[in-house]
């Protein structure tokens, strides 16, 4: 059952991911953003299969909720009509596919030729309790530093969004 679910979610993730970068029906960035939401949701399904329940929830709340709403707002702020009329450059497409395919091949070959040393019967549970305990004991300093990083991001965004940049 879990194996079938894995194949379903993996297939959905890859198909939606492909539709984000190259949708044959629409060049509109809004469609790309919507397919990115679907990619992220199906990836949350993969996280659940990996017993990372907290991260699956965070993935949907933060990525599919907050980040993608931000993306959609910005897309609607900008007038991107001109983008839909532009054609793909054939040379760029060929070069991009070749280079990304080469990296894919290198990764796959190194992956399949390495003994991974994974345990066959994983018992790890990534619930809120386990993750929270680790986050507030061993990783409490990075946790606090991340809050400072978010504060810096807020200040930077407010500064950048002012009408006149000096």
């Amino acid at each position, binding site marked *: 059952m879990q194996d079938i679910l894995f194949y379903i979610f993996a297939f959905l*993730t890859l198909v939606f991911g492909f539709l984000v970068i*190259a949708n044959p029906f629409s060049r509109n960035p809004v469609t790309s953003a919507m397919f990115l939401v679907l990619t992220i949701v199906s990836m949350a399904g993969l996280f659940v299969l990996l017993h*990372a329940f907290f991260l699956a929830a*965070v993935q949907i709340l*933060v990525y599919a909720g907050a980040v993608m709403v931000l993306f959609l707002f910005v897309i609607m702020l900008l007038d991107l009509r001109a983008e839909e009329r532009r054609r793909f450059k054939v040379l760029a497409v060929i070069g991009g596919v070749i*280079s990304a395919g080469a*990296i894919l091949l290198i990764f*796959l070959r190194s992956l399949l030729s390495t003994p991974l040393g994974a*345990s*066959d019967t994983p018992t790890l549970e990534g619930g809120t309790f386990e993750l929270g305990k680790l986050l507030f004991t061993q990783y409490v300093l990075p946790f606090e530093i991340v809050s400072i990083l978010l504060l810096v991001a807020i200040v930077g965004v407010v500064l950048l969004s002012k009408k006149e940049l000096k």
Partner: protein
Amino acid sequence: MTVGLEHYLVVSVMLFALGLTGVIVRRSVLVIYMSLELMLNAANLALVAFSRFTNNLDGQVFVFFVITVAAAEVSVGLALIVALYRKRQAAHVEDLRTLKL
């Protein structure tokens, strides 16, 4: 054949390659940004898979931090894109050749 670590890693690698292709092929700044998110997500998937199959929760904590930093990065990047669009009326990498405003 039961699903193991390799399966998740293969999915992660393929998603990463898709994101990389998007960054190279697409010319709209926003879609390039979305492809970057795709690559970050692929890395997250690999980390969670490793964490699960080596019985070590540190990977998931790392993914938590990656998601937080990605959220901050998206907000700053989109603010930059909006500021750039206000100055230049362009969100297309071929129209954005210089950094000088």
